[in-house]
């Protein structure tokens, strides 16, 4: 049994079909990457997985249970965590309180009190290297720091699946490697499955994943082991060929 | 039931509805353009009524002339309030603009109270009456309904047929996009809020044409509350929606009042108001974005 299965999911917005018959799976502790050009439906896919949108068609099975109709907060409690592309810290709260909220409402939710949540928050902040900024207001953080906060908040939820939206976008290569290593270490230690989405074919991210799905115009057009997909000529076509041939 | 009465009530409902329509249009316009719920809308309506009164009594100017004064004063007041206060609050938490416009509303009411006192005042601009079967409707109230309709038509033409109008609509839809296209967004906000204020004051003048009595500093509050129902009915932000909402509302009111009276309720007026607010609540639940919008 897979940890998460997305079966033939279709999501429409008015007349536009954002996702068309998308199927994918992820196993416990596995790392996958979802790549695709801008507007290919990656964000919608994540939103369908974590419950921001309910799909018109298809089912989402998580740990053997149909969660298609569950709301976002219920899925969070079951262990589906998300870090946003455009970071969304709670600006008026401190860095520590932001991460505490992750711990308080994640999978440990009912089992811990605020004091224990504080402890988890501090651990996570040390992990991502924001511990000495713990008492700053989140709004005061720089762009890259906010990404780290986003990651710490998601990890504090003690998730089984971590969905990372473009976590490395706009970062210098050295920083990218650092974050990728960080995620890899935590995920392996705590057996977290990771789904990471990227717009551009970033080597570091692709190498980190075990399997990769390529999304184009709402459909999965390629999938499989990283090496196979990377060697497939179709990939180049999606990123370069068709777009230019079709005329802009 | 007397068929003459039914026809009369229908006409009266249309006139009243047209007035309610113009009352609500300014509120809807400001929300549409700047995402601000203007809680000073009622106070501006009140100032419109006082404008009509003051110029009629002091300078023998008919309310028709006061309409021009109202739009000029409203435009300049709205633009100044925008640059002084609201500009700093665009995009802030909704709570802040609600409070700011509420503060403005108290301020305007207090100035009126200090200036005119709490007495109910009125004037008499009589153009005669029309007899519809056995029932009477004043010429001035019919004129009020027609003027309200004309203002809405002019406003719609302005928004859809002129360059500035399309800039206003552009900002309403996407301020960032409009900014990128080279539109001075602040100027457009100032203009939009000015027009909204002007419409509110003009509707105050129009109200005195329908009923030239009972002018007092708190005259605007019930109109503000009714405007909420109407704009939600027509879709917050829509001009034509607000006007059509007003017509529906006016027709409903002339039916509900006699109905509750017939049913021997203690206070038919209160029951009519009660029903209006219940309609508002139901609408907000089933169609929060208006009856006509998909």
């Amino acid at each position, binding site marked *: 049994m897979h940890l998460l299965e997305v079966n033939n999911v279709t999501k429409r917005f008015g007349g536009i079909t954002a996702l068309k018959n998308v199927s994918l799976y992820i196993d416990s502790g596995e790392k996958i990457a979802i790549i695709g050009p801008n507007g290919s439906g990656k964000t919608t896919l994540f939103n369908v997985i974590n419950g921001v949108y309910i799909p018109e068609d298809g089912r989402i099975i998580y740990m053997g249970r149909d969660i298609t109709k569950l709301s976002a907060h219920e899925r969070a409690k079951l262990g589906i965590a998300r870090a946003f592309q455009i970071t969304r810290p709670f600006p008026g709260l401190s860095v520590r309180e932001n991460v505490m909220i992750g711990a308080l409402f994640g999978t440990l939710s009912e089992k811990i009190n605020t004091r224990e949540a504080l402890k988890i928050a501090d651990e996570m902040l040390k992990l991502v290297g924001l511990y000495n900024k713990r008492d700053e207001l989140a709004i005061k953080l720089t762009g890259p720091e906010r990404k780290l906060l986003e990651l710490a908040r998601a990890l504090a939820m003690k998730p089984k699946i971590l969905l990372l939206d473009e976590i490395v976008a706009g970062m210098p290569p050295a920083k990218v490697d650092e974050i990728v290593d960080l995620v890899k270490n935590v995920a392996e230690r705590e057996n977290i499955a990771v789904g990471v989405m990227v717009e551009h074919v970033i080597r570091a991210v692709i190498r980190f994943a075990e399997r990769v799905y390529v999304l184009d115009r709402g459909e999965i057009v390629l999938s499989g082991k990283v090496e196979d997909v990377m060697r497939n000529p179709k990939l180049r076509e999606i990123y370069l060929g068709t777009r230019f041939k079709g005329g802009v | 039931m007397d068929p003459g009465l039914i026809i009369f009530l229908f006409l009266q409902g249309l006139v009243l509805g047209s007035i309610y329509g113009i009352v609500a249009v300014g509120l809807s316009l400001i929300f549409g353009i700047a995402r601000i719920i203007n809680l000073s809308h009622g106070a501006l309506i009140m100032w419109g009524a006082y404008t009509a009164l003051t110029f009629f009594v002091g300078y023998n100017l008919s309310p028709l002339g006061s309409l021009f004064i109202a739009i000029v004063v409203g435009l300049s007041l709205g633009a100044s309030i925008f640059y002084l206060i609201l500009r700093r609050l665009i995009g802030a938490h909704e709570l802040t603009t609600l409070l700011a416009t509420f503060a403005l509303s108290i301020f305007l009411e207090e100035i009126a109270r200090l200036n005119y006192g709490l007495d109910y005042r009125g004037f008499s601009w009589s153009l005669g009456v029309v007899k519809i079967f056995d029932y009477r409707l004043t010429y001035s109230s019919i004129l009020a309904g027609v003027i309200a309709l004309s203002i809405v038509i002019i406003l719609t033409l302005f928004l859809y047929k002129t360059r500035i109008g399309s800039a206003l609509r552009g900002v309403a839809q996407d301020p960032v996009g409009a900014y990128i296209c080279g539109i001075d967004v602040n100027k457009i906000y100032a203009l939009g809020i000015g027009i909204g204020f002007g419409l509110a004051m003009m509707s105050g003048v129009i109200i005195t044409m329908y009923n030239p009595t009972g002018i007092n500093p708190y005259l605007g509050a019930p109109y503000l509350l009714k405007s909420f129902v109407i704009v939600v009915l027509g879709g917050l932000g829509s001009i034509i929606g607000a006007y059509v909402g007003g017509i529906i509302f006016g027709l409903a009111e002339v039916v509900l009042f006699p109905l509750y009276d017939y049913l021997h309720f203690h206070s038919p007026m209160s029951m009519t108001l009660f029903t209006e607010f219940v309609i508002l*609540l139901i609408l907000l639940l089933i169609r929060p974005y208006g009856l006509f919008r998909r």
Partner: protein
Amino acid sequence: MIKGKIIDHMSLIIMIFSYIIIWMLKTSFPEYSQMLTLLLYYIAIAQAYNIFLGMTGYVDFGYVSYFGLGLYGMALGVSYASQNNLSSSEAIILGMILSVILAGSVAGVVGGIALRLRGAFFAIATIGLSQALRYLIEGAKIWGGAEGIIIAKDLRKLFGEEGFSYATITLPDTGIFILAVATGIIMYLIRISRLGYGLLAIKEDEDAAKVFGVNTTLYKFVAFIISAVLTSLVGSMWTLKVTAIYPPESFNIAFSVEFIVIVMLGGGGTVLGPLIGASIYSLSKYYLGVYLPGLQLTVFSIILLLIVLLFRQGIVGELRSFLYKHEIVRKIIR
């Protein structure tokens, strides 16, 4: 360790200590007694409203309805008790229970439905609700309709002629003091609990809060009910002071705004905000009435504008943000 714990709860201690000082001032200086009762009344309501408005950022312009239903609950309880020859304590308890039931059930219905709306739509719906209630009472002549309920006679019957000042001064004043302390403690406990963190997350970014596991619908609802019920209890005490209630005053939106201003002035979501906000508000209202009679509202409208423009987080909120770096300040100023 113990010292650390005391410091952690410093804001609660400061708050309760201040209330006790106000109470002591009130008993020592009878000439200021009514002004200080008014202050405690504002503190209690502001703290109750803070639990909803301050913590979630949702503006309820119809909030006065819950105060009004509290007024009606007590008035109905007292008049029923007097007609049925119940004892005076039974009358008060019955009144408080009725207040809680009325406010709790209306808040339950409104919360269950209107809390699905956001921002401006929620604000409009709440205005509609308070006005609908008022006009229903007047129009269908429920609970005395527009004539209201006058309970002075009933109180005389229940408490006796000599007990009248106890029933209309000592009892409600003490009740309001206890409620001020109780709402303060409840607000504090919420602020430091899971519920409090969830509510603050909703205020900051409701959609993100959902994704991070906060059951936003439930949390807003719980805060709304607690807030409404506490306010209704303050209303039930207030009935005993005024002894006559009428629909227009009981559901007057201007009162909602008064409460909003106090919460905002002090700082929404802060524990000490209502104390500071209510103190500044009631003192300036009192002295403006003395020195600039007739101009209070004009001055207030200008003050309100200044708060909105310059102190968006309120006095306590701005101070806390400004001094956030210092750990002691963070713990004391909450």
